[in-house]
């Protein structure tokens, strides 16, 4: 074996130029070439105790797939990843690797960790480009399982069960499969074609996908059992968007991030002649500091905004978004108004002309400046209002990106399904709910979290469902 590549820095991910990409919806990161991938793979020391695998919610055999890349056996690498992950091309793009596998990498102690996420993406894209063989459909074991929701947890659960021979049907409320991967995460971070490809792979494994079925409305969980399903996995996602409860949130031009992103992504308002409208151009303020806020801000910019602000009440150090997303947003020209909290949204009203088309639309957002005070019980320093610091930010659109609360649709129609104080479905360590045969995972359980943690939950539930039905 050749000697490892001891460069302290990882291979740079080629990206579109910030000023160009800020005006298009094409993918920002362009991916490694074969040569770069092999060079990066050479930085892996193939540690015996594999700390990186511990950091992965779905326990991908990381050193093993990287070894295959070193040999130039990219399809071999793909086969290793796909044993653990149903959505490698998705995870390679949206996982927060820096806090998971890569945070445990030994190379990260003196220098940068191996670019595991970039390598995963390379392998998945290589497979999707060059390997067109349909996956082998396993022999049926005759058991029927229903999966509610086709987001990351549902697709993972469905994929794992299908590989074991289960007859799986996924029920999706919207008209396209993919959940947050299609309505939430924008094209420039996760191209829709990649999600469609992953869904297609599952279909080839025998998974059936029924769109336009709202479980809790069109059918209930109990009806699924009477239809012959022997187990149900609920991966219905996060649900209802939160608002701040400040005056002016009903003005035209105020969106939840969910609505803004759904219009742009799922409903394709980002195309040149969309059928679904969206507010474009002008000045936009996105309130919040998570990944969803970054997605909304960068989408607004690409839709043609003149100026986009991120308004966040804490400082840069507390921003919950991935560092890479924050950096990309800054490079593209998004302005961060930190230690700043909205108190009111102001509307336009022309007293001389009640028919003025601008009446009832946003014209500015009133904010106060904040400073960080004493740490709270979680150790995060609490933001405190600075007296007499009020100012107005002139904006046309405000996007509230301050989290979601669980959707009551399934809970209210499923007797005996226990939920916690916040409305999240209560599960044990196997993903089992208070109802026999009913499992749950993802945001429906945890509240808004990451794609990969939802996938991890789908995986655990698939294993538990298999054990339950094999008895």
């Amino acid at each position: 074996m050749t000697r490892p590549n001891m460069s302290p820095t990882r291979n740079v991910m080629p990206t579109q130029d910030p000023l160009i990409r800020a005006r298009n919806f094409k993918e920002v990161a362009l991916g490694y070439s074969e040569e770069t991938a092999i060079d990066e793979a050479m930085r892996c020391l193939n540690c015996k105790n594999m700390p990186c695998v511990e950091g992965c919610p779905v326990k991908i055999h990381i050193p093993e797939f990287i070894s295959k890349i070193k040999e130039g056996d990219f399809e071999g690498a793909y086969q290793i990843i796909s044993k653990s992950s149903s959505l490698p091309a998705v995870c390679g793009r949206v996982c927060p690797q820096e806090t998971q596998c890569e945070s445990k990498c030994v190379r990260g102690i003196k220098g940068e960790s191996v670019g595991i996420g970039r390598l995963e993406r390379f392998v998945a894209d290589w497979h999707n480009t060059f390997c067109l063989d349909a996956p082998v459909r396993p022999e049926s074991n005759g058991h029927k399982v229903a999966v509610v929701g086709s987001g990351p947890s549902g697709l993972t659960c469905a994929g794992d069960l299908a590989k074991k021979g289960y007859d799986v049907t996924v029920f999706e409320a919207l008209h396209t499969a993919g959940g947050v991967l299609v309505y939430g995460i924008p094209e420039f971070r996760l191209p829709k074609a990649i999600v469609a490809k992953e869904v297609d792979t599952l279909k080839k494994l025998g998974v059936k996908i029924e769109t336009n079925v709202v479980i809790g409305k069109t059918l209930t969980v109990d009806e699924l059992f009477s239809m012959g399903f022997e187990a149900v996995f609920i991966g219905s996602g996060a649900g209802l968007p939160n608002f701040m409860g400040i005056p002016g949130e009903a003005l035209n031009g105020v969106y939840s991030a969910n609505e803004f992103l759904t219009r742009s992504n799922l409903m394709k308002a980002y195309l040149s002649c969309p059928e679904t409208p969206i507010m474009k151009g002008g000045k936009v303020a996105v309130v919040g500091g998570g990944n969803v806020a970054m997605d909304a801000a960068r989408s607004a910019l690409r839709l043609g905004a003149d100026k986009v602000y991120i308004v966040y009440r804490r400082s840069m150090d507390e921003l919950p978004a991935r560092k890479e997303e924050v950096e990309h947003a800054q490079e593209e020209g998004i302005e961060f108004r930190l230690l700043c909290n909205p108190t009111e949204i102001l509307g336009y009203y022309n007293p001389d002309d009640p028919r003025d088309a601008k009446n009832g639309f946003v014209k500015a957002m009133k904010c106060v400046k904040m400073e960080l005070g004493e740490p709270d019980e979680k150790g995060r320093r609490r933001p405190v209002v600075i007296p007499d610091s009020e100012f107005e930010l002139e904006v046309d659109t405000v996007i509230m990106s301050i989290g979601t609360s669980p959707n009551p649709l399934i809970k209210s129609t499923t007797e005996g399904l226990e939920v916690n104080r916040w409305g999240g479905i209560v599960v044990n360590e196997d993903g089992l709910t208070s109802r026999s045969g009913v499992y749950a995972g993802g945001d429906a359980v945890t509240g808004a979290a990451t794609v990969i943690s939802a996938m991890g939950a789908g995986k655990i539930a698939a294993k538990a469902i298999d054990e339950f039905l094999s008895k």
Partner: protein
Amino acid sequence: MYKIVDKKVLNPTVVQLQVEAPLVANKAKPGQFIILRVDENGERIPLTVAGVNKDAGTVKIIYQIVGSTTEKLSHKEAGDFLQDFVGPLGVATHLEGLKKVCIVGGGVGCAIAMPIAEALYQMGADVTSIIGFRSKDLVILEDEFAACSKVLRLMTDDGSYGEKGNVTLPLKEMLARGEQFDMIITIGPLIMMKFVVETARPFNVPVTASMNPIMIDGTGMCGGCRLTLNVDGKKVTKFACVDGPDFNGYEIDFDEAMARGRMYSQFERHAHKETCNLFAKEVQ
């Protein structure tokens, strides 16, 4: 894909479709709605269920041609297919225990009021219906309302049919002469519902209003359909798709709802014109 099995033009701008959607037909109750897309890339629009046939597995919808999507929908014929059709969504109208009810419908809102009037009639309730239209040629469902109402008052703005005036006139007259209703259920333009509430207020009769705001997913995810209720002096945000579409009329902030309804009016006018031009070109 969802097959259109029957199409009936009710008046120059209002069309009735029967769509094959057995799962929806099996569940839908009066007051609930569906969301449809006409074609790939199409908009999602909410329409209230106007009736179901469980045996045939069909759902009846009645819509007015107002924008690009309803324009495209109006060019679909029996035998054609719709891309998407999902439901039933929202909470069904609460009818339990009602004995004497006044239904106040306006324009195409009468299509939503119809199944409610019918359900009440079948429950044995005493139904008074007040239905209003701009003019004679826009009148719909007159016979259907007559069949299930003890009293039917048909109003037109211009007096070209029925009585001249808006729906609040007979409502006020009945309430003033001491008619006792358990509930007034009103469905129609926001401005009409607002005035129905104002008419009923001095008489302390409960009013349920059915809201139809802008929405996308219809399952509570986007929050676009939010409206403000004034509950005991406190402002409360509700989502019409999961908490409604019916709300206590006295609590609804109608002025805000009307302003929100205008959010995309410019875009919609333009899109409708473009769609009409497209169809005109096809004809040529």
